């Protein structure tokens, strides 16, 4: 039985932002509880890849009694194949700032930061201009909220929320132990809401049009629309806003080059879906859909039959080996073992049964790694090795 959710385009994110002043001032007149309820009923989930319910996040942080709190926009977009946040910050930055300011109103924060990855330094002049204008307006309407940009310096792991806090505190970006969670203990040890750029842009849509408009898109457990960054073997690379819940088969029909062998959903930390599974895979968050439902930051990379899956996996493992913070044993040593392992199998230095040992290793990494990076290596490793085992062998 195939899933027949169609590929549906949506058009909220990049639609005009000119009414941001109105959206902001109207939202600030509402009570925090009212705004939280709106977000919760919209069922918006984080768009950075982790998919945590945004309304709930704002609610938990607002309930902590602490005079100093922070709102942080996670613009450390580093997942391979993801480039949507850059586009949002270039085209509709006021939506993001508005989202941050409303969050500040809801949780009781007076300071907001945008953690911008170092590679996007060229965005800074324009972004600073926008922020100046935003700050000016906030002063005009007597709203005490200042936004600053904090530049990253080339570390993928700083996209992890607690590593981001560490980086902002002037330290190495090493993820912290959780619990405590950011809503209790975040930046500088204070309650913090940290949201992805796209998530904040969606809150703008919700506050402007109301939860129902957002909720009506998508499917159960995966409401609303999402930006997808499409690249690889496709005639239509670019950024597309689509409703969640679509089937991968429909996606490939639209974006593939006719010879699509596999699609990497969610970047290097995501899953590789082979052609034979396109029909039974939907793009959304875990729920009761038939088949596999995959959460994602929106990175969609298409590979046609000319691509070697071994090279693909090798590339991912190289990436993880370099970008891991190196703190915890399973990730630091595990990534090295996986990379060397597949190379050894490919060269015939190790038996193919060694691949099974490596698969078991990724299971251990999934269970024991300290943060999402180590935990997610298993995703791409197992999906590639299990579906393209023949390409891993000498």
């Amino acid at each position: 039985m195939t899933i027949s959710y169609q590929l549906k385009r949506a058009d909220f994110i990049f639609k005009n932002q000119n009414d941001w002043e109105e959206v902001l001032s109207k939202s600030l007149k509402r009570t925090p509880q009212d705004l939280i309820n709106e977000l919760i009923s919209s069922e918006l989930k984080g768009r950075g890849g982790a998919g945590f319910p945004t309304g709930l996040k704002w609610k938990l942080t607002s309930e902590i009694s602490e005079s100093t709190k922070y709102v942080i926009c996670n613009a450390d977009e580093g997942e391979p194949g993801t480039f949507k946040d850059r586009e949002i910050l270039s085209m509709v930055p006021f939506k993001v700032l508005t989202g941050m300011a409303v969050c500040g109103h809801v949780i009781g924060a007076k300071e907001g930061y945008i953690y911008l990855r170092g590679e996007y330094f060229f965005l800074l002049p324009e972004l600073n201009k926008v922020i100046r204008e935003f700050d000016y307006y906030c002063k005009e309407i007597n709203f005490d909220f200042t936004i600053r940009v904090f530049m990253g310096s080339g570390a993928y792991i700083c996209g992890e929320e607690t590593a981001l806090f560490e980086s902002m505190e002037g330290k190495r970006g090493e993820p912290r132990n959780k619990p405590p969670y950011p809503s209790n203990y975040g930046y500088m040890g204070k309650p913090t809401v940290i949201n992805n750029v796209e998530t904040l842009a969606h809150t703008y849509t919700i506050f402007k049009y109301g939860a129902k408009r957002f909720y009506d898109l998508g499917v159960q457990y995966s409401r609303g629309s999402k930006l997808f960054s499409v690249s690889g073997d496709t005639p239509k690379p670019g950024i597309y806003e689509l409703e969640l819940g679509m089937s991968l088969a429909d996606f490939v029909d639209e974006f593939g080059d006719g010879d699509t062998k596999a699609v990497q959903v969610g970047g290097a930390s995501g899953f590789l879906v082979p052609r034979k599974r396109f029909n039974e895979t939907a793009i959304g968050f875990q729920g009761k859909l038939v088949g596999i439902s995959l959460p994602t930051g929106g990175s969609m990379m298409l590979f046609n039959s000319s691509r070697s899956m071994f090279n693909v996996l090798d590339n991912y493992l190289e990436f993880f080996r370099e970008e891991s913070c190196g703190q915890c044993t399973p990730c630091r040593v595990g990534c090295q073992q996986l990379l060397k392992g597949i190379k050894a199998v490919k060269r015939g230095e190790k038996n193919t049964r060694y691949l099974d040992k490596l698969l078991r290793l990724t299971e251990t990494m999934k269970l024991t790694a300290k943060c999402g990076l180590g935990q997610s290596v298993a995703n791409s490793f197992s999906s590639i090795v299990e579906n393209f085992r023949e390409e891993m062998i000498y």
Partner: protein
Amino acid sequence: MYPVSELIKNLADQHGRNRHNLLPILQGVVEQEKYLSEYSMIEIARELDLPASEVFGTATFYSFLEYKKMGKYIIRVCKTITCSMKGKNQILLAIEDMLKIDVGETTPDGVFSLLQTNCLGFCHKAPAMLVNNEVYTDLTPEKVHDILNSYLKKQKEGGSHDN
């Protein structure tokens, strides 16, 4: 261009002297000097009253905070999956051929350094590279030639304004 110790003092005045001000200060020094020397790190440690080892440990964590001497223009070619698929190696070969250096090296005249980096966020326009803070996409060997030549020209014209 300030001498380094003066630069560091100015940066500390501008950002603050707390631990959480460390990263902007490190970035400020790299912006002007292109890298963090032993001397710079010790001066930063002195200014912020931090152990020198902490400055070193923090700086070496971040790929863009170089601690070895770098050229005036640092080329960072993306090597993650899509750029690799779309011809990153040809781009590298073209650069290596033109500048006569390998990845990780700096030209003897100190103008260019060549490095590889991870996903720059321009996968739909791969292959891509950074030269200092400028992004160049949809690269071909010919385009790369032109880009690097424009930097050489800027360098010859005594371009003290760089990005």
